[in-house]
């Protein structure tokens, strides 16, 4: 039997990351339509359609969430966690620069570790308090890194990919880490074996 499994990452994005009141129903609708499309066309076409729906859903849900009370609460949680993250990072940076490794080169190596760890912790805390808050927190991390890059606060000369790593891996750590720690469970029961059965 051909396995009709919708893209797991897109499932996770829709059900676990995006704000909204009915993520489970929304993902169920997408899986139902995906199964029909995979049978009538091909699995590749259906997967492409699934991905386009998942990606186009992001701005709609984030914008809608920003406009209502739920979004306000999620944003407040994200801001609170962001402040705590900032304090954590400041403390870690200070400890590294003053105690552990006063040399600049060692700091350049350790800074991404501190940044990613702080982002991961922040993501887990935000997801634990409120599911939709991780998306807002990730957005805030992107904006912060972009602003810091634009202001050129880093006096040490670093290659472009080093800064690009901060810009991409930081928000990813915020979003993905809660899943890795079992906080978000979107991929569970996501695989469908065709009509009428669920893959184990």
């Amino acid at each position, binding site marked *: 039997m051909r396995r009709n499994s919708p893209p797991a990452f897109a499932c996770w994005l829709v059900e676990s990351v995006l704000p909204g*009141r*009915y993520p489970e129903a929304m993902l169920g609708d997408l899986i139902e*339509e995906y199964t029909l499309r995979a049978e009538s066309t091909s699995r590749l076409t259906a997967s492409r359609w699934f991905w386009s729906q998942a990606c*186009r859903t992001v701005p709609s849900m984030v914008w809608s969430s920003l406009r*209502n009370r739920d979004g306000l609460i999620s944003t407040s949680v994200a801001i609170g966690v962001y402040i705590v993250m900032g304090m954590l990072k400041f403390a870690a940076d200070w400890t590294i620069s003053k105690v552990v490794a006063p040399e600049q080169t060692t700091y350049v190596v350790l800074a991404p570790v501190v940044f990613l760890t702080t982002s991961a912790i922040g993501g887990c805390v935000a997801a634990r308090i409120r599911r939709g808050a991780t998306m807002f927190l990730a957005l805030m991390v992107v904006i912060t890194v972009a602003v810091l890059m634009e202001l050129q606060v880093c006096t040490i000369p670093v290659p472009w990919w080093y800064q690009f790593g901060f810009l991409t891996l930081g928000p990813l750590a915020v979003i993905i880490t809660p899943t890795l720690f079992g906080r978000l469970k979107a991929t569970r029961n996501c695989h*469908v074996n065709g009509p009428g059965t669920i893959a184990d």
Partner: protein
Amino acid sequence: MTFPAYLFYIAKQMNRGELLGSLEHIILLALARLDGGAHGMIVRREIEERTGRNISIGAVYATLERLEAKGYVSSVTGEPTPERGGRAKRLFRVEAAGKRALQISEQTLRCMTAGLESRWEGI
């Protein structure tokens, strides 16, 4: 009732909460057509078939949530089914307030477009 008086009546009736956005209007109409409750994907499909607009499921749910908050639609959870990966449907239906908002929007549109047909002929 004269035409200006009718317009005044409509404007008075439509307080801020009753103003429908274009997507809200279309989704309410789709739900009204699918009488008896429908889930998001059916609404999306109905709009696509009738208007050719390929809207995302996220836009449909975001609008449905907004309409529910306004009291224009209500929703209930259906039974989880295997073809949906064990996930339950959320069935939406239009409430009386939603039907009233639709009527007012339709009346307003009719009033605003009255007499414009001759101007549109050349377009």
